[in-house]
């Protein structure tokens, strides 16, 4: 479905405060390769600034690669008009980015309208998708985004990404802006929807638990490179580096600390020895 081949993205770093490093080149992504098979969910996991969002944006050419090539559904993205490319790929944005001057229905209908679908087809598709993401179509169609909660807004965002019947979904920290309870619900719904719609998903997150819950495979990224890409269980059993090991182990350590708190080992809490290594 997606084939990323030796892709790099370079930025020229401007002059620093002392002007010494003027003209220096920095890599946001360096020599990265990744295959995503149809029906698979791959998660790009890493800290802020590791290049995961840049990688995602290069797939629909919101960012142009400096080197390498990306093939989506058999077509080299360099040879496709970026506008056409983007209309064929569902994208859920980190900032949600609903159009505030449009109703929920108009937001979901955005890409089908760009593609010139007729109004009956658009209407049917919008209703179907709103119901599928758990928003009663009749009740929500005509609302404005500002009248929705954060979780509802992200549901609309997902519906918008799916509207043009794309099987490929790129998701940039899709649940970063919602509260943990809502996030849990949205994650479960995504898993259900993925099965029903036979979606291929490439998802970016810095949340290890989210990665573990959603991914068929996780690509752990650091400083523009993939450190290891494997199934979650492989990553645990056979981590390629200490960094991968510590990152993957974090949810377990956190949950252990939560357990400790629940069982009242207050002494450890006040001693200051609270895993300062994260």
């Amino acid at each position, binding site marked *: 479905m997606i084939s990323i081949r030796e892709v790099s993205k370079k930025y020229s770093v401007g002059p620093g405060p002392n002007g010494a490093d003027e003209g220096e080149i920095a890599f946001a992504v360096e020599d990265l390769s990744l295959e995503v098979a149809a029906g698979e969910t791959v998660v790009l996991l890493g800290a802020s600034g590791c290049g995961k969002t840049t990688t995602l944006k290069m797939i629909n050419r919101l960012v142009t690669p400096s080197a390498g090539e990306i093939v989506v559904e058999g077509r080299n993205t360099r040879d496709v008009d970026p506008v056409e490319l983007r209309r064929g790929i569902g*994208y859920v944005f980190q900032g949600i*980015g*609903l159009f505030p001057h449009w109703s929920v229905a108009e937001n979901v209908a955005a890409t089908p309208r760009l593609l010139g679908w007729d109004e009956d087809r658009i209407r049917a598709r919008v209703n179907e998708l709103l119901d599928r993401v758990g928003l009663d179509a009749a009740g929500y169609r005509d609302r404005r985004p500002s009248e929705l909660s954060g979780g509802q807004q992200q549901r609309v965002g997902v519906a918008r990404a799916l509207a043009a019947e794309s099987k490929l979904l790129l998701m940039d920290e899709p649940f970063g802006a919602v509260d943990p309870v809502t996030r849990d619900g949205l994650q479960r719904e995504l898993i259900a929807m993925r099965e029903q719609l036979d979606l291929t998903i490439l998802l970016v997150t810095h949340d290890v638990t989210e990665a573990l819950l959603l991914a068929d495979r996780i690509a752990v990224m650091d400083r523009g490179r993939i450190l290891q890409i494997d199934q979650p269980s492989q990553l645990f059993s056979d981590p390629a580096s200490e960094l991968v090991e510590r990152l993957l182990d974090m949810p377990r350590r956190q949950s252990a600390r939560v357990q400790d708190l629940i069982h009242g080992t207050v002494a450890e809490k006040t001693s200051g020895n609270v895993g300062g290594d994260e």
Partner: protein
Amino acid sequence: MNAAQFESQLAHFPNYFANHVLLVIAALVFGIALSLPLAALAIRNPRLAGPLLGLASIVQTIPGLALLALMVPLLGRIGVVPALIALILYSMLPILRNTVTGALEVDPDVLEAARGIGMTEEQILVRVRFPLAAPVIVAGIRTAAVWTVGMATLSTPVGATSLGNYIFSGLQTQNTVAVLLGCFGAGILAVTLDGLIRMAELAATRRDARLAWISLACFVVSVGLSTAPILGDLVGERTRPRASVGAKTFTEQYILAALIAEKLDDAGFDVVIRDGLGSTVIFQALANDELDVYVDYSGTLWANHLKREETAGAEAVLSEVKRWLLAEHGILSLGALGFENAYAFAMRRDRALELGIETLDDLAAHSSTLSVGGDYEFFSRPEWIAVREAYSMQFDEERSFDSTLMYTAVSKGHVDVISAFSTDGRIAAFDLVVLDDPRESLPPYDGVLLLSKSAARNAKLVDALLPLIGQLDDSSMRNANRRVDLDHRPITEVAHELAQKRMD
């Protein structure tokens, strides 16, 4: 203040207001139509935004009156066109600035989403940036609307009729009613326009189709009603031939224009008076055939247009001016009206006695300690240079006034001497003395009736005006001026008296 005066002023209101509305609406429509594409260009090429907004700001820093005045030489014509172009330029900055700022400040998350779902840059602009910036853009349009209403009052001196005709003529003839009517009209227009735009904005943000139709209907009805008095002129067939009469910016000119208009009206012409025109503007308009007739002064033409520095006798100046006008511009000087309105240096009688000043020679001797007042034109006119050189004057201070206010200024002692007009009723009324000019440094200023090339060929028009030649003497002109300036009689009434007394 009296009822007759109020009525005679009010009679102009429909015409002035209609012209003002048309000017403002046209300027705004063109202003918006030009600003939005330019703003779109600036948004697409942010490097253009700085220079473009800078240019618009520079236009804005030019004083309104200067911008309008600049349009006349630039376009080589007077009237609605230069006024409209100046107003369009003036209206563009707030629209341009708000559109660019508003569109560039749209939430980056929304812009990324627009790009990410596959909108082209044009679609992002039209479907996302402009709609989201709409409140800021509309605020810019509202600012432009109010500015344009105000600035349009300044289009009178370039020959476009507007509510400014009230303000300029009212200031000139010290007619408060006229000034207030002008301000009132502009105020009403600004408030109404602002309200209508606000209503349209509300309809757009609420997506209320009914409100949109209502505001559109209100707009059409108000523009229709207010412009009805002149729309007929614009589209209807004319049964009477048209004639346009010009007047400069002082009382005597307003009276003479009204007098000429009365004569032409009697002869069956539809007369338009273009008053409040600057000296060069009015001459240019006549030379361009944009104006049919006005009264100028032989000395003014001699010094300013023929560029003659020496002086000559009244007859010689008249014939030389007449020959030159016809040869150079095809303008016909129909003849002298009979009065002379010369530049005359005038002082308060007690002050002149105290300093022992009777002539310009005496004045020159004291000039280094005295201040001199003149109208806006005077200190840049060749006559002033000629007088200064002839008598070696060097005044302590030169102050420009509106020609109406300088008489008050000298009588109250704000200045010691002014460049008065010899036919002005206030010389006698304020007990001013006119100083002799023993070196004859100032040319004669006979009032001459000038006809444009096409008016000169119009026998009916020429016949209607010929009876005026040689019929107005100094004292009747001075009386007429006094009746307006000091007794505050309506101009048309005084013009009519002048016509009756002399021509019957």
